[in-house]
């Protein structure tokens, strides 16, 4: 062995020359196990959906004693999607005008804000969408295509598709990571289940907001709160997991190999 090779055995490579040591069998095993978990969770989806929507109904029954909440079902590919049916309300013209003014003002304020411009521009766009919704209800309220049950189905069915895509993508991302397989399974389940459990909480909140404050908030809730929020906490868990892996890798010379 040459002298420099001897030294290379003792130090962590410079970042330009770093590459992860991975065992091919371990890698294939990780992908297989994560894929099996993905399939198992998918196969339990009917059970998860029935129970999740059931809990949502129970909760709504307790806070709205006089209201009627039913559970209906519609087919989406291989799934029968349960969703909550209840009645909602159209905004009054005064409420729509007030919403339009407040949303536009907020949108302009957010747009003009100099600090954390990325966050405030996002909020500006969302409040602008809310202003568009208010304008729609002022001008064409009778053409609004959704009732609370149709929106309820749309929200939960798109959430289900979202969960499946996220689980598939994060399966591809978590599987090859250089850490203990049990830890990978734990993190994968944590990401998947958090997306699903928090997804039901979101659904509950959306039903309450739409029922309580009218259909005017449907577009902004669907776009801003429905899909993108799932991404934020899934990536948050993933980011913390990557942080943990980085910390442990920096302590272990044997986990790295030099680029050759």
């Amino acid at each position, binding site marked *: 062995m040459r002298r420099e090779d001897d030294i290379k055995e003792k130090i962590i490579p410079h*970042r*330009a020359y770093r590459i*992860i040591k991975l065992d091919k069998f371990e890698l294939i095993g990780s992908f297989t196990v994560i894929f099996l978990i993905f399939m198992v969770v998918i196969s339990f989806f009917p059970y998860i959906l029935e129970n999740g929507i059931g809990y949502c109904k129970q909760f709504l029954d307790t806070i709205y004693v006089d209201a009627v909440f039913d559970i209906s079902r519609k087919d989406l590919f291989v799934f029968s999607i349960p969703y909550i049916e209840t009645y909602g309300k159209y905004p009054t013209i005064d409420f729509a005008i007030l919403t339009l003014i407040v949303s536009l003002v907020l949108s302009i304020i957010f747009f003009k804000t*100099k600090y954390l411009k990325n966050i405030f521009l996002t909020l500006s766009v969302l409040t602008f969408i809310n202003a568009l919704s208010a304008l729609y209800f002022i001008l064409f309220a009778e053409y609004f295509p959704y009732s609370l049950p149709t929106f309820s189905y749309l929200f939960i069915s798109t959430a289900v598709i979202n969960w499946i*895509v996220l689980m598939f993508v994060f399966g591809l*991302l978590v599987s090859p990571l250089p850490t203990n397989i049990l830890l990978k399974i734990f993190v994968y389940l944590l990401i998947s289940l958090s997306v699903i459990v928090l997804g039901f909480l979101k659904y509950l909140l959306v039903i309450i907001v739409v029922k309580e404050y009218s259909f005017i908030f449907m577009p902004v809730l669907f776009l801003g709160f429905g899909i993108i929020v799932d991404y934020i906490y899934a990536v948050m868990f993933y980011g913390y997991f990557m942080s943990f892996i*980085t910390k442990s*890798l920096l302590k272990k010379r044997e986990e790295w190999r030099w680029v050759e």
Partner: protein
Amino acid sequence: MAMGGIMILVLKGYIISVSLLCILYALRHLIFAYDRFMGKQKIFYGDIIDDQLPTVSVLVPMHNEEKVASNILSLLSKTDYPKNKYEVIPINDHSEDKTKEIIDEFAKRYDFIKPLHRYGGKRGKPAGLNDALKIAQGEIVLIFDADYLPPKGIVRELAVNFKDPLVGAVMGRVIPVNADKNLLTKLLDLERCGGYQVNQQSRYNLNLIPQYGGTVGGFRRDIVLETGGFNENVLAEDTELTYRMYVSGYKVVYANRAECWEEAPENWNVRARQVKRWSRGHNQVMFKYFFKVLKSPHLTFFQKFDGLLLLMVYLIPFLLLLGLFDFLILFFLGDINFIAPVYVMLIPLLFSGFGNFAPFYEIAVGAVIDGLEKRVRLLPFLIFNFVFYSIYISLGFWQAILDSIKGKKEIHWDKTERFRDKGAAD
């Protein structure tokens, strides 16, 4: 079919088409992430020890750079490159502050510093570089922006790549020196990490199209002069040079070890102007090179494929933004279906880092390799960059379209504001 039906079909068709394009990019970047994490890596030529080094001219374009000029000139004067094969040409382009005095002071102390003061003719970086190329003596030309802090060995690490006669250009790695300053600089550090450590290195590994970035890199002087110098009407002279090299049969080397520190923008308005300018320039190059790439006999199928995807990176945010309007129209028409939500999800999932066009998983892999233990926790914040980048990149795209329609010849080069205190990096 009724008019309304056709309209809905068009709206849905658009969403499906852009979603498929997004999935293509997502797969491309997933392959890059896997490749950098565990694939076979291609090393640049930087480790070659050779005393037969080429002659080098280092060009430093400067316009009102008094805050940073002395830092870079001081560092370039300390290089370990043989001084008889080395010259530095600071290009003072119509400066109105003390840049000229600082350059002249250094020129008095070091005879290899040969200033070029420009107070007439066309303004801007490409015009300045063209004038400098006329007086440069080196076979190889390296370029550093004025705010960069090049380490002692970088000139050798970049220049040695040209021992391979097929190498037309080389690109080093850019790392923000002020990464800890605020949330923006931290996010930019993450984007750079994904963009260079993973994206550029993988494109180099896979024999695709690593990009010459206009700074911390260089090229053969004769090739650029023979092909007409820099196009003074294109803002992204770096991207233009990359494609010119490839369609002429030369290759670009990515030197991951050749690291250089830069000053990242510290406020959002400066960053907005920067990405708008990049977008405008990059899209000008897209209009010019799209079919040239397709027809080039020097490029392989995969190089053409990757080259076209790379050309379109500053078009995608505009297409995505258009898709969001499409999505809203479909929502209000009550014709939303499962495809539209998947589209919405693809946007934040895949295109969170538009600065260097790195999705969050590519950035995460880069952060693990770089050891950015705490910074990688900021990944979810990248989602909020989508709207910001999409708006400003789309504005740049529109400017590029207007440029091509009007045939605009005079383009004002918008200098990036510096944040460093004078001499702070000494």
